[in-house]
């Protein structure tokens, strides 16, 4: 009883805070910086480099939004969050948007009162296991000890998967990916499970990557995307269409290299509308006509961002897979700019 009263108070306070900060766009413009929640560090997705500048796949989304809204891709205040603090940081208004490889789920969208503005990475949960154990399918994992990050959807997926297949397992709860790597290598668990992208990134750092296999089963859908608070749809639209602009830019061949030429005007009306030389899409968003030009120039289009941070030429070496354009057999499909 007492607990529910306390939580109720929190919720009311949270809603009050949400309402009071409704016009996020105005707040961001007045502040001059975008407060963007990121992870405290995940290889390829967000981490500060030796000079202290944040870089990564999620970071690029923050920078694109900052470029679209404020005209400066570096006007971002990165607020590092852990799996446990990320949602309170967003709900309390400490951050304007969260780009922290967060899985879009029903309860997060509906019950926690957030709004996912799209999907920037289609992921799925997989298993990694030492090759010498000779396991070739996740269905042979009965009785295994499994390293699992707490407070994530992967924990719940794992329980669901083992229960539905009538298998026992022993979870080894861990806090961060770094800890998981060490535990797994030290043999504290037979299997490490997290998003397949994370597994690939982790395996790439091993001294002998070939000694570990990623099992073929993908046991969950993990659509990762940026999210904002409920109740400010204008701001949600800006984040959503900035992401869409990056995806559409790849589809129409707009790159950071040729964007200067293309803004002079092209024969493709869709490109012209994205780049603001035709129509008034920017005005509808409450921004100027050049918003998408700046967003794309910041780090390039979706494909360039992918290739630079997590693509096959990087140590992480992820293939595009599901994250290819729909024209190439992937799932990336931006609604039309019209």
């Amino acid at each position, binding site marked *: 009883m007492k607990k529910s009263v306390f939580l109720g108070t*929190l919720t009311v*306070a*949270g809603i009050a*805070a949400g309402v*009071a*900060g409704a016009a996020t766009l105005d*707040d961001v413009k007045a502040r001059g910086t975008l407060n963007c929640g990121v*992870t*405290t*560090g*995940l*290889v*390829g997705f*967000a*981490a*500060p*480099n*030796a000079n*202290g500048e944040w870089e990564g796949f999620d970071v690029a989304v923050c920078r694109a939004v900052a470029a679209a809204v404020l005209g400066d891709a570096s006007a971002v205040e990165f*607020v*590092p*969050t*852990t799996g*446990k*603090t990320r949602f*309170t*940081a967003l*709900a*309390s*208004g*400490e951050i304007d948007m969260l780009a922290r490889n967060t899985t879009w789920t029903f309860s997060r969208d509906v019950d926690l009162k957030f709004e996912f503005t799209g999907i920037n990475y289609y992921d799925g949960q997989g298993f990694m296991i030492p090759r010498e154990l000779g396991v070739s399918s996740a269905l042979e994992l009965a009785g295994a000890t499994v390293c699992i990050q707490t407070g994530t959807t992967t924990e719940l997926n794992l329980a669901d998967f083992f229960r539905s297949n009538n298998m026992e397992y022993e979870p080894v709860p861990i*806090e*961060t*990916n*770094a*800890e998981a*790597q*060490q535990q797994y290598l030290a043999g504290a668990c037979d299997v490490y499970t997290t998003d397949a992208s994370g597994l690939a*990134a*982790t395996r*790439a*750092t*091993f*001294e002998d990557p070939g000694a570990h296999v990623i099992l073929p089963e993908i046991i969950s859908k993990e659509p990762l995307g940026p999210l904002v608070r409920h109740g400010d749809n204008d701001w949600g639209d800006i984040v959503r269409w900035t992401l869409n602009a990056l995806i559409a830019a790849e589809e129409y061949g707009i790159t950071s290299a040729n964007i200067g030429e293309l803004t002079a005007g092209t024969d493709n009306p869709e490109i012209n509308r994205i780049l603001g030389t035709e129509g008034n899409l920017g005005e509808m968003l409450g921004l100027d006509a050049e918003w998408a030009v700046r967003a794309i120039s910041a780090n390039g289009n979706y494909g360039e961002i992918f290739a630079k941070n997590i693509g096959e030429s*990087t*140590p*992480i070496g992820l293939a595009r897979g599901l994250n290819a354009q729909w024209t190439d057999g992937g799932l990336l499909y931006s609604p039309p700019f019209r």
Partner: protein
Amino acid sequence: MSDTHQNSIVYVRETMLPEAPPPATETGIVKWMRENLFSNVTNGILTLVSIWAIYQLVMAMGPWLMNGIWDAPSLSACREILQGEVGGCFAVLTERWNQLLFGFQYPDDQYWRPTLAFVLLFAAAAPIMFPKHVPTVGLYFTAVYPFLAYWLIWGGTILAPLVAMAGFIVGYLVYSRFVAQSFAAGFFGAIVAAFATWWIGGMIVDLVAPETTVLSAVESRNMGGFMLNMILGTVCVSLSLPFGIALALGRQSSMPIIKWICVVFIEFIRGVPLITLLFVANVVLAYFLPPGTTFDLILRVIIMITMFASAYIAEVIRGGLAALPRGQYEAADSLGLDYAQSMRLIILPQALKISIPGIVNVAVGLFKDTTLVSVISMFDLVGMIRGPILASTEWNGVYWELLGFAAVLFFVVCYGISQYSQWLERQLQTDHR
């Protein structure tokens, strides 16, 4: 007579024997080993096992340390240089040295400021820690140091720390003016006067603060690395000591309201894990504060850790107070000393002396507990290692080198504190055991 004597003795030595060396088994290394390592069968076996264990450890650690790579751009480069041999990749320490010490957001041309503050810390601590060896003039510097250090590390206008200092001075003046009439008048008058000074001073600072300052301002969220551990550790230990004494005395007070406030505070704080308090500081407070208010995160964390440590120190000091014979209290009363005098001159010096090991224990534990702030996404030394450095594509996978380095840093500080406390105990030893 002499005949019989001569006949009764077969042989008489007529010259002194030269001094012979003691038998080999009773001297030098052999004797030492016999006595300390192989005094009986069990000890002999244990010695051999220990030697074997040490040998294994050295053989495992030695090549790793000696082959260590100190200059490489990434872990994969390290492995390439090593070509499969055993060796540590210490290059991560050299490349991320500044990040480990200062966090990744402190402006790199300003590193001299926290470094200077750190060096001055010793100068400021010396008059308190070694009162017999350092002239008392040094205490003035100690009093100024907190404001100086704040100004050095955070930068910005110098007026802010000056106003903070003025508040304390005004408070002290008011206290010394009124304390002769009544302690309460002096105490509460001082608090009111100090807050009035801060309030008025704060408004003046806001008005006249120049746009550009000598030292550029650095925000709290940009603090990190071992610097953050040192800030939290030093500030919280030095604040929690006076608070802990006050709480311990309050708990023994005969005034019920004060007594119960102290009891409830101590028992509540001790009953709650530190990590919970940190989560409250970081997450829950954000719900209650109106959006847009920025109540400095480091300040919130300092308040929480200080509260936590005060409660523990209060209990340690209460133990010291309880250990004093009742006669000491009665002796103080019979001399006609009032409460404050008897505490200051008779009771506390003895009680604190007894409490030193306990206080140091809390201080060392507290210093190590400052690494818990990494859980609320602050980038202290452990936070830097667990977050940014291990998540960079270059250094993902370097664990032993980084965490070993963190362990060494913490060991140096904690061992230093421990050695100082033992020295202090010897200094204060007045009994005849």
